[in-house]
Each structure stands twice: as structure tokens, then as C-alpha cells.
């Protein structure tokens, strides 16, 4: 297509709006309601243009380009109309400052007068200086408003975590409503009331927290005015620097842009250029980065225990002390626990240090809880090879999606956005979960499954596929016959009794999966966390082969894939994560190097304990030395996200106090212990060694990484896939009179190193407190428990304290709590789990009882 805009000839391809094309060519058309990431809306009318042979003034944001169009964007008539429209908008927006002739000079005086409740002009607004409305007023050169001004005098909404909403500044452009609905799938806000009362609001004007808001902050970042204001920086000046890094708080690794003022972090926002997140993030990346880096619980001085107490010391002394003591322990006597949240470089060095200096194979990290580790274990048991790499767009391309074992808008927000895209494109979503999830609104089928019976359900579904073989059109691949006969024991008439899912439900599930060409199976901890987790995954694997679906293990920590790749390079002979803690309790272990989160070790029998961490935690009471590690923000490195994408992150501030990056600490220690293999002066030097040593990294070039190009970890060529015969088993939970409830645990990702986010941030606590004990509304009523009441849960091996959270759709008799490795002993479910965990990944279901706090 050929068109002209303001006389300029332009070639256009595809279905594009006039505004899009103009923007791309650098032709400025004022606009307020349009946003490149949202569907056209046509609300503000500022973007009007003239098109030859078309009457009126069509809005360019919702007019599609046609061949031969001659478009004008700046005629005097248009400018006059636009000014009028803008004046109308301004008549309902505090405008004194916008049109003030002194506004340039005002800057010098205004800094102190911001701290007023009511925003009656730009000088009082937190958006001043970064406001799109200001920009448009500036370009259209508005100096008066000829309509009577109204201040709507709406109450400013301050009852929610993280941000305030002042709709007196709102111009009703609808961007927040649309981003919340179209991109986030939350639809927490909507236009409510009508005519002159129309405003953006929530159901029954409730706080956002009761309206399904995810607190992702997308509305805040897309609002062209100051209506939505982040509380933490309301009164801060503009940043003087903006840098980019990668969020370390889940397996996606969103690219974040961090605003700095005098080298201090003001705020973090999703980066529009982020390959993974494309302008989106979640509550953690958007609102908590600053809190965690600048937490008062940061350790900023090395500590050691020369006498009775932990005392501050210098790095020299601390390193000498640790190096000297560590020399005494070798091999089986010592173990090292690393965090899956450190960079590949650091994890690599921790491993190298353990094997070369501590001469031990007892190195592990908490990654064994992850679906990734469980599917890997399953694959090894059955001689399979896995494809772990994927791309997010594989998910949004799927025609049918099956989600089991995770509440992804909370746990994997970015994956959720892809699922939402697929659904918006017409894909069918099927969810298997015991309790109702907010995303069920988007599902075609919700299978309310009895917790713990996933294995049966999946096998029943496989059986149904076999029975309908013609429709199912099975691939005849290896293992098919033995798989088929292994399903013999499943009697389809028992499906409801055994799983809580009706026969019709099962048939519907079959219909949904067998029709779709491209299916995606996403599975999380809810499937893998049982002692029989590998069997669950095997059942899902078979079903995926039958439905020709791609499997997506929902990763956990940010660098799990990196940890996994590097860990595979070692022999795997040593103690694993749980065994290490068991050995610490039994006294088999004499010394422990903790460079990652761990349960409280009060009962441990250790001669020497070193903690290398960024935050104060309970284990300090037992530590002989504490080495203050800096956070991800204070060094460079690479993370590998859930897709297998290698992402470089950058140092954005200097380490706080005397804290040092993990790679530095380990290198210094190794050198002090006489090892010459740690000459590294900066992370890139370690990256080079990593590339040489670890096979999965061998194709990576540092140059590409530095430029932010798409780099994936390398996978081995795979052999053909095959079915796995299922092993029937009886699943029994030992509920008893004494312990009438079953506690199911969610492994929580709301932590960074040993900092529990909900205990650090009030806002996070309001959204999802790690100390909530979820209970069904019926059980709560029976026991007369009220929301927020503090209660104690007791199992045969311990107790913990928490607060009642009523979850209407939870099955009766089931409790839920989150599992965090490093919580205070009192509040941690760790104590409930009988002597470590029976199997490496099992959080299972624990028989418990509830006691009231007196």
C-alpha cells in the first residue's frame, strides 16, 4: 500500500492504523488514550486527522490505513479542534499549573510544597515532569481553558497496598481499564457509573485488594496522568539515572529499568524492550526490588565468633578466620548449600570451591523441589531424554492448554500473560485444581480434583484416550503396548470416587485435548511435590504423548536452569539438599557452608557453620562466621530463565556497606586457602571459564550476551520419545482422630535469599502473607475461626504459628500453607515435617490438627 502523510510518501504493509504508521515514521500526532500495546479505543479524539475524500475528522488511532490515502495531521483546523478538545479535557483536570505562564520558573521554588494531600496542580503532583498530559499541553501550546473548571472532589483512594488512586486527575482515557483487562486478565478496574459521574472504579467501590487486582502496576505505568501514584516515591524528585537489570524473583527474569537518584534506588519498572516481559512485570519486580535491596535486614559487615558473641570484623580477619577453620574439614565431613538465586558464575564458583577446596561432593541447592528436578528424575529413572528449552510464544500459540498444579497469575505472572493471549486467540484452557483459581474465569473446563489424586486422574484420561483410539490417533511409538496393558488396573467407572472428577468431566477433558492440534501442558509444584511426584509426571508425560502436547515444567527460582546445568556437571554422588540437613542433625556432618536459604538449624550438631548471605536470619545464632554477600543489584552476571534463555544482568549500584559479591568472597577464600584456580577479577572472566567447562554453555559468546541478543542454553540432540508403563499404587493419607486435617504445602517463591518478602513489605503481607493458613469456609465456621485470627498447627513432629485465611473453595478437611526455607522457626512449616523430608522433593500432605492461640 502506498499512502502519504503530510505529503510524505509512505509504503505500508499489513493492517495498521494511521497513528501507528505515523509514529513509526516520526510524525507526531497528539494522542492520549491510545497505547501501542493496547487495542484501539478512540476515546480522547485528540489524534484526529484529515483524510482526503473522507468526511469529518477520523481518529487516527482507530482508522486503518488504506491504499492511496492522503492524510494530513497538522492543518490549522485540526490544531484548533484539538486545542478545543484538550481544553475540554483540562476543564475537568486541575489545570492551573498546566497553563500557568510562570511554569518554567516555578520549578525553582516548588520542591518543598509537594507534601500536600490534595493535588490541585502539577507542582503538587507526583507525576510532574514525566506526564503525558503535560507533554500534550506543551505541544499544543494551550495557555487558557475557556470552559469552567471543575474539581470533582472525589475521595483519594489510599486503602490499597503500593499505590494511591486520585481520580480527580483522571481523564477517563481508559488505558488502565484496558491494560488490566486485555493484557493482565485481571479486570480489577472498570468504568463505573455514568454520565458526569463516570469514573474508573472497582466492584462496589471496594479496595483493589478485594477486586482481583494482582498489583502488577501495569495501570500505574500506562496512565498518562498522575492519577495513579506509587506511594513510596510520591514525594521524591525525578531520577537522575536509569539503568537496566534482570529481576531475580521468579523463573522468568523480567528486564527491569531501575530509576536511581544519587545512586539510590527510587523505583523499578518493567522495561518495554525486555525480550521476556515486553513492558510487563509483577508485583515483586514492580514494587519490591527497592525494598529488598535497601532492606534494614541487610548485613553490611563481616561477623565472626571469636569468643561467645558474633562480632563485627574486617574482611581480612573474617576471611583468614574462615579459611583457617575450613581447612580442618574435608570430604564427607563438610557440605555446601548454594542458593538457586545467585548467578551462573557464582554458582559455578561455589561448586568449584566445594570440589577443589573442601574436597566434597556434598553440594546442592533447594532446586530439588522444582518440577524441573522431578521431571529430570523421572526421565533418568526411565532412560528418557528431555527437551527443556522452550519459548514463551510456544505457549500463546497453543490451541489447547492444560494447567495443573499451579496458580500461575500469582506464581508465574509472565507465563499467565501468554496463556491469556492464547485464550484470547480462541484456545481452550483446561484447569485441574482442588480450589477455585481466579483464572478459572478464562477456562473452558475446571476439573475440581481431590488433592493428591492427580496420578489417577491422568491415568484415567490416558485410558479414555486408548478407548477412543480412532479419534485419539495415537502415535505408535516405543513402549506403547506395555503402557496400554499397564492401564489395565484402572476401572473407568471408579473415576469419580477416586478423583472427585465425574465421568462427564473426564469425557469433556478428552474432547478438549483430542480436538486441538497444538496443545501445551503446564505443570507446577502441585503435581510434583508428592513422594510419588515422579509417577505423576510420568502419567502426564504419557498423556502428553497421546495428545501430542508440549510439556512445560513451571520453573521456580530465577536461576534454576543455570543451577541445574552446572549441577549436572558434578558426579551427583554426594548428599543432596535434604540429606545434608539430616546429616547436620545426626552429627554425621561436622561443618556446613551455607550460601543459600536453609531451615533453622537449632538442633544441628555442627562444629563449624559459615553463612554467606545478604540478610540477617535465625541461623546467625549458630554461625561461627557471617560473610555479607551483596545482592544481584550490586554485581554482574548471568541468569538462565525457565525457557533456557541466558540473560545478562548488570550491576546497578555499589555494594551496600562492606558487602561483597558472592564470586568475590569465594575467590578470596579459595586464594587464601592456597588455590590458584580463582584468579577472577570480575564476572566476565568467570563467564569465560564457565563456557569452557560446562557443556550447555559451550555455544555461548560473551559478545552476544553483552549485546542482549537471544542466547539459549545448548541442549543435547534427543532420541525418540517413548511411553512409560504406569505403576498403579494406593494413595492413602493418614488422617486420624488426633490429626483430622491434611496440610498441603505450596513452595513459595516470595523470597530473596533469606529474606521473606511478605515479612519485609507491608504491601506484600496484605496480598499474600507467608503466614496465612488457608482453610475452607465451612471448616472455619465449624471451628468458629475468624479471618486473621492467629492459630497454631500441630503435627506429630512439631508446630507452627500462623493466621487464618478463609478460602471459600478449598475442600473441607484440607489446609494450605506456604513453605519457605528460611522463615523464623516459630512461623515456619519446616518444623511440621518429620525429620527432614522422606524423599528429595516431597512436601506431600501432612496430617495436622489446629489449636487456638491463647
Amino acid at each position: 500500500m502506498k499512502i502519504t502523510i503530510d505529503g510524505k510518501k509512505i509504503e505500508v504493509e499489513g493492517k495498521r492504523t494511521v497513528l501507528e504508521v505515523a509514529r513509526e515514521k516520526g510524525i507526531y500526532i497528539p494522542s492520549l488514550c491510545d497505547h501501542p500495546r493496547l487495542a484501539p479505543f478512540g476515546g480522547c479524539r485528540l489524534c484526529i486527522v484529515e483524510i482526503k475524500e473522507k468526511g469529518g475528522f477520523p481518529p487516527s488511532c482507530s482508522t486503518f490505513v488504506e491504499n492511496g490515502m492522503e492524510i494530513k495531521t497538522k492543518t490549522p483546523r485540526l490544531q484548533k479542534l484539538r486545542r478545543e478538545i484538550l481544553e475540554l479535557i483540562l476543564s475537568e483536570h486541575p489545570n492551573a499549573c498546566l497553563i500557568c505562564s510562570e511554569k518554567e520558573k516555578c520549578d525553582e521554588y516548588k520542591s518543598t510544597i509537594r507534601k500536600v494531600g490534595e493535588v490541585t496542580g502539577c507542582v503538587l503532583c507526583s507525576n510532574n515532569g514525566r506526564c503525558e498530559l503535560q507533554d500534550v499541553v506543551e505541544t499544543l501550546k494551550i495557555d487558557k481553558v475557556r470552559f469552567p473548571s471543575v474539581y470533582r472532589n472525589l475521595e483519594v483512594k489510599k486503602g490499597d497496598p503500593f499505590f494511591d488512586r486520585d481520580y480527580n486527575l483522571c481523564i477517563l482515557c481508559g488505558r488502565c481499564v484496558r491494560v488490566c483487562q486485555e493484557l493482565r486478565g485481571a479486570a480489577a478496574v472498570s468504568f463505573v457509573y455514568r454520565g458526569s459521574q463516570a469514573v474508573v472504579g472497582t466492584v462496589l467501590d471496594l479496595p483493589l485488594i478485594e477486586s482481583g487486582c494482582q498489583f502488577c502496576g501495569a495501570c500505574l505505568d500506562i496512565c498518562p496522568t498522575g492519577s495513579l501514584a506509587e506511594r513510596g516515591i510520591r514525594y521524591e524528585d525525578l531520577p537522575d539515572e536509569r539503568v537496566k537489570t534482570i529481576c531475580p524473583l521468579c523463573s522468568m527474569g523480567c528486564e527491569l529499568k531501575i530509576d536511581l537518584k544519587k545512586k539510590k534506588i527510587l523505583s523499578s519498572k518493567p522495561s518495554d524492550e525486555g525480550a521476556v516481559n515486553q513492558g510487563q512485570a509483577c508485583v515483586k519486580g514492580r514494587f519490591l526490588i527497592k525494598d529488598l535491596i535497601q532492606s534494614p535486614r541487610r548485613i553490611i559487615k563481616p561477623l565472626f565468633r571469636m569468643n561467645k558473641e558474633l562480632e563485627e570484623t574486617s574482611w581480612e580477619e573474617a576471611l583468614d578466620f574462615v579459611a583457617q577453620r575450613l581447612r580442618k574439614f574435608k570430604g564427607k565431613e563438610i557440605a555446601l548449600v548454594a542458593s538457586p538465586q545467585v548467578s551462573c558464575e557464582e554458582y559455578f564458583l561455589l561448586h568449584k570451591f566445594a570440589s577443589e577446596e573442601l574436597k566434597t561432593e556434598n553440594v546442592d541447592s533447594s532446586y530439588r523441589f522444582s518440577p524441573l528436578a522431578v521431571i529430570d528424575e523421572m526421565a533418568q529413572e526411565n532412560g528418557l531424554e528431555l527437551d527443556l528449552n522452550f519459548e514463551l510464544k510456544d505457549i500463546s500459540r497453543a490451541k489447547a492448554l492444560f494447567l495443573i498444579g499451579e496458580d500461575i497469575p500469582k506464581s508465574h505472572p509472565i507465563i499467565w500473560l501468554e496463556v491469556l493471549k492464547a485464550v484470547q486467540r480462541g484456545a481452550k484452557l483446561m484447569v485441574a485444581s482442588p480450589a477455585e483459581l481466579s483464572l478459572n474465569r478464562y477456562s473452558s473446563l475446571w476439573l475440581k480434583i481431590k488433592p493428591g489424586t492427580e496420578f489417577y486422574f491422568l491415568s484415567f484420561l490416558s485410558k479414555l484416550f486408548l478407548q477412543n483410539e480412532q479419534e485419539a490417533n495415537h502415535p505408535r511409538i516405543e513402549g506403547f503396548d506395555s503402557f496400554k496393558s499397564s492401564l489395565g488396573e484402572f476401572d473407568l467407572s471408579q473415576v469419580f470416587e477416586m478423583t472427585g472428577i465425574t465421568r462427564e468431566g473426564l469425557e469433556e477433558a478428552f474432547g478438549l485435548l483430542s480436538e486441538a492440534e497444538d496443545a501445551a501442558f503446564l505443570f507446577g509444584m502441585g503435581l510434583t511435590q508428592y513422594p510419588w511426584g515422579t509417577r505423576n509426571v510420568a502419567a502426564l508425560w504419557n498423556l502428553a504423548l497421546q495428545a501430542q502436547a508440549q510439556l512445560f515444567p513451571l520453573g521456580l527460582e530465577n536461576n534454576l536452569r543455570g543451577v541445574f546445568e552446572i549441577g549436572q556437571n558434578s558426579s551427583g554422588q554426594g548428599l543432596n539438599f535434604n540429606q545434608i540437613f539430616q546429616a547436620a542433625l545426626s552429627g554425621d556432618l561436622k561443618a556446613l557452608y551455607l550460601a543459600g536459604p536453609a531451615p533453622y538449624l537449632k538442633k544441628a550438631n555442627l562444629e563449624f557453620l559459615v553463612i554467606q548471605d545478604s540478610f540477617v536470619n535465625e541461623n546467625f545464632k549458630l554461625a561461627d562466621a557471617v560473610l555479607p554477600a551483596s545482592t544481584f543489584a550490586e554485581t554482574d552476571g548471568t541468569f538462565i530463565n525457565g525457557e533456557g534463555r541466558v540473560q545478562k544482568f548488570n550491576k546497578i549500584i555499589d555494594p551496600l556497606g562492606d558487602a561483597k559479591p558472592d564470586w568475590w568472597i569465594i575467590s578470596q577464600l579459595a586464594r587464601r586457602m592456597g588455590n590458584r584456580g580463582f584468579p577472577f577479577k570480575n564476572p566476565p572472566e568467570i563467564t569465560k571459564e564457565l563456557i569452557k567447562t560446562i557443556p550447555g554453555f559451550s555455544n555461548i559468546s560473551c559478545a552476544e550476551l553483552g549485546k542482549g541478543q537471544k542466547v539459549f542454553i545448548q541442549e543435547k540432540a534427543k532420541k525418540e520419545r517413548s511411553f512409560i508403563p504406569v505403576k498403579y499404587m494406593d494413595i492413602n493419607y493418614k488422617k486420624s482422630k488426633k490429626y483430622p486435617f491434611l496440610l498441603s504445602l505450596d513452595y513459595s517463591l516470595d523470597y530473596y535469599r533469606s529474606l521473606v518478602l511478605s515479612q519485609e513489605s507491608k504491601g506484600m503481607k496484605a496480598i499474600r502473607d507467608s503466614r496465612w493458613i488457608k482453610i475452607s469456609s465451612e471448616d472455619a465456621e465449624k471451628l468458629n475461626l475468624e479471618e486473621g485470627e492467629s492459630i497454631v498447627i500441630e503435627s506429630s513432629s512439631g508446630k507452627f504459628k500462623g493466621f487464618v485465611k478463609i478460602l471459600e473453595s478449598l475442600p473441607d478437611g484440607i489446609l494450605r500453607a506456604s513453605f519457605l526455607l528460611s522463615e523464623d522457626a516459630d512461623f515456619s512449616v519446616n518444623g511440621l515435617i518429620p525429620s527432614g523430608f522422606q524423599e528429595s522433593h516431597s512436601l506431600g500432605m501432612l496430617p495436622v490438627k489446629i489449636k487456638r492461640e491463647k
Partner: protein
Amino acid sequence: MEKIMSESNSVQRELIHLLHDVQNKFGYIPAQSISQISRELKVSESEIFGVLTFYKAFTLKPRGKHLITICMGTACHVRGAPMILDEFERKLGIEAGETTEDNLFTLETVNCVGACALGPIAIADGDYHGQMKTREVGEIIKKLKQEKGKSIE
């Protein structure tokens, strides 16, 4: 895209339909019904609220058998509407926006009904009463009570 549009339109229609049913059955939209509708139609609660506050036909509070509306527009206001309102409030024992316990009367205010010359104005079940005096208040209430109750739309 077109598919989404047509789908969302049909959902919208279904939503309005359902809201009508609820309104007819209960005489208002009970707050709990919003979450039920949300489950049923798979539309968020805030979206439903947006739709139901857009149409005047839906109300969130139960309405009594008889609806009394007092104009509080500027003209009526200066001509003594507040006194009329006070009197209704006193006689009915409720405040503007509320409904009596026996569910007989609902008292509401509006801003200008376009008959300023006749102010102050009270509208009882659709009948306009112009140039209201406080002493007429009792009469209106009595008359409404006697009527077996024209139902309100």
C-alpha cells in the same frame, strides 16, 4: 479479533439479561449476586459493576413499594427543597437513599428534573407534586399508603 468482539458482545448481552432477571426477582441487585454472576458468565466483578451502574434500571439497594424522589437541583434548593426533604425523612424515619423497614417507601434525591419553575418538586410514584409545602408531606405519604401500590417500573 472479530471473534473476540462478537463473543464479548454476546457476553455483554447475556450479562444485561441476567441482571434484569435478578433485578426483577429481588427488586434490586444483591451484592452477593455479583460474584455468582461473575462465576456464571466468567466476567470480572468490576466489569459487572460497571455495567450495572451504567443502566439506571438496576439498583444496588432494595427499593420499597413506593418511590419518592425529591429534586435537589439549584432552583428547587433555593426554594426550600431541603426542608421538604427533612420532613419526608422525619415522617418516614429514614434518610435519603434509604428504604423503610416495612419496604413500603424509598426516598431518593435527584438533581433537577427540568420543571424548575414549579419548584420545590417531589415525585411520588411518577406523579409530580409542584410547589411543595412541608405540610403536604404527610398527605402524600398517607395517600400512597392507601393506594394498594402502583408498582414501580
